[in-house]
């Protein structure tokens, strides 16, 4: 963790992921005069506005013009600055897709993109505002690093680590009301290095983003009932992915479930499947991708959608049961 950043575990409970991003970036701005912040009329929503308020001369709002914002971020990087461009994940990955690929990744420029309100976190905002393809899109761009922090604390860790990272990076955060997956600031965070959130010998849930906490709680459900011992791995860096942790989990547990707030095509599940297949696990490991099953999402509050697409605690629990041939437990609430 870079020194001097002011936030506490209290913040993690009180602030949304986007708010923590805004706060940490503002703190980093004091230490790094080369940071500039860019927005496309979402400074308030993405919380990059905190930086805007403190460093107005280093802040640029491009209006509702995401392509222009990313192009200009490339220009600012060429001029020697470290731009942080914030917009919703859907617009970063799709409206400005070509600019990210061709203007940032191809010349390998030092621009960090913060995609907020990613996944289904816009809830009843609907498909136009959901980002359920962004990991898949950005994962295919050479030179790109794709970060999916699990909660606000990890968002802070990612933002802090990003300043020393050379090259383009996509940082995917939610809207924010996700509860924290970590209860302590005290853990080692390295870009590209998966974190074992919970040990387990019988099956592994490989998750990213909000699914990490859901997977941990599903694992706890099994533990409470003396069920199988479920390992949970947090892949906060989907690219470059931690192959070793995935292969180790396949060897040691033989059952792999991926969980993500993303289409099951192209995202974390695909990335893990590629590794398992190439490492020779096809047929020898039980494997299932949990995520949005290649559909455009229905309307509802995020929690409704997480349940609908079975990426919440109960959904992940049930998927583990399906894959391991276990009887599902009765629940009071409908899922």
């Amino acid at each position, binding site marked *: 963790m870079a020194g001097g950043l002011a936030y506490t575990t209290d913040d993690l409970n009180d602030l949304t992921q986007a708010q923590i991003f805004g706060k940490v970036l503002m703190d980093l701005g004091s230490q790094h005069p080369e940071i500039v912040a860019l927005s496309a009329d979402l400074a308030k929503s993405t919380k990059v506005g905190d930086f805007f308020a403190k460093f107005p001369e280093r802040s640029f709002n491009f209006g509702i013009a995401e*392509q222009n914002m990313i192009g200009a971020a490339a220009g600012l990087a060429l001029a020697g600055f470290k731009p942080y461009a914030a917009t919703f994940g859907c617009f970063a990955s799709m409206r400005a897709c070509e600019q990210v690929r061709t203007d940032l990744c191809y010349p390998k420029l030092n621009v960090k993109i913060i995609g907020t309100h990613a996944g289904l976190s816009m809830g009843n905002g609907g498909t136009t505002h959901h980002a359920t393809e962004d990991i898949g899109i950005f994962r295919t761009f050479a030179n790109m690093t794709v970060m999916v922090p699990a909660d606000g604390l990890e968002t802070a860790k990612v933002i802090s680590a990003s300043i020393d990272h050379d090259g383009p990076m996509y940082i995917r955060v939610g809207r924010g009301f996700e509860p924290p997956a970590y209860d302590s600031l005290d853990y080692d965070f390295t870009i590209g290095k998966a974190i074992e959130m919970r040990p387990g010998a019988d099956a592994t849930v490989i998750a990213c983003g909000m699914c990490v906490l859901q997977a941990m709680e599903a694992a706890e459900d099994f533990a409470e009932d003396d069920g199988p011992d479920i390992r949970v791995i947090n892949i906060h860096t989907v690219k470059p992915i931690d192959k070793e942790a995935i292969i180790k989990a396949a060897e040691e547990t033989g059952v792999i479930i991926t969980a993500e707030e993303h289409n099951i095509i192209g995202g974390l599940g695909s990335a893990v499947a590629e590794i398992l297949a190439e490492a020779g696990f096809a047929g020898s490991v039980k494997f299932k991708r949990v995520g949005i099953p290649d559909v455009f999402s229905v309307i509802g509050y995020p929690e409704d959608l997480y349940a609908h697409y079975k990426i919440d605690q109960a959904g992940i629990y049930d998927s583990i049961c399906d894959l391991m041939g276990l009887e599902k437990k009765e629940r009071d609430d409908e899922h």
Partner: protein
Amino acid sequence: MIHNYTKREDLVNFLKGKSVEVRKEIIKLVVTAGGGHVGGGLSMTEILLAMYYHVLNIDPKNPKKEDRDRFILSKGHGGVGICPVLADVGYYDHCMMDDFNQYLSPFGMHPDMHKVPGIDMSTGSLGHGLPISVGLALGARLKKASWRTYCLLGDGECNEGTVWEAAMAGAHFKLGNLTAILDRNRLMLDGPVNEIMEIDPIEDKWKAFGWDVRIIDGHDYNQLIDTFESLPPISSQKPVCVICNTTKGKGVSYMENQTKWHYGGLDEATEKQACDDIDKICLP
């Protein structure tokens, strides 16, 4: 500037000679490549020579010089037009382009900033250069630097919406250190710009977006030099768009104003005729 001429007349005569050399090299490169964007390469020869020899503050021996002026070739398919000019002013030797566009060559159809010295940004997809230039100009101002950013656009390229997003931003941010140059050769791949997707009144459009506009003959060195020497100071708060009326395929009789020569290949006979034409049309 990359010359020692003190008299304008001598400079212009020198540049006119260079126009012939560069155009012939473009033809040669198109032959080497087996085809190329020859029409749009030939339309911007005088613009590029005036910029790189005279207007830009650059040091070809130190391509990344911190305080250099930046030149963004937004019409990246003009690679065949700019690469001989960069060689000519000394960024690299002409023989470096012997494998132009060939397997593993640093010189592709669209220039790569990490492979071609003197290229400030990799381009090729249209509509990208002006947003990038806006960012460069914002960066220069934030650094309190005196260098300027120039961005060369095609006229067909002005169909791209991002050109206008950036035009809006250039005026909004009052970027007096930003200059757009429009290679107004009036043809695009599918046909005349005014038939495929009209951009006129292009002067009014740039003005309405808050830019100062100059309209000149893009093949006339005196007009080019006068215009760029008299740009308002970078503190002027207003970006400038220099609309350069040009001829696509300039210098080669059978290519001039011909849509089909947007991109093409040459055999021995058409190559020879092209070079003969360039000698006749372009010589001082």
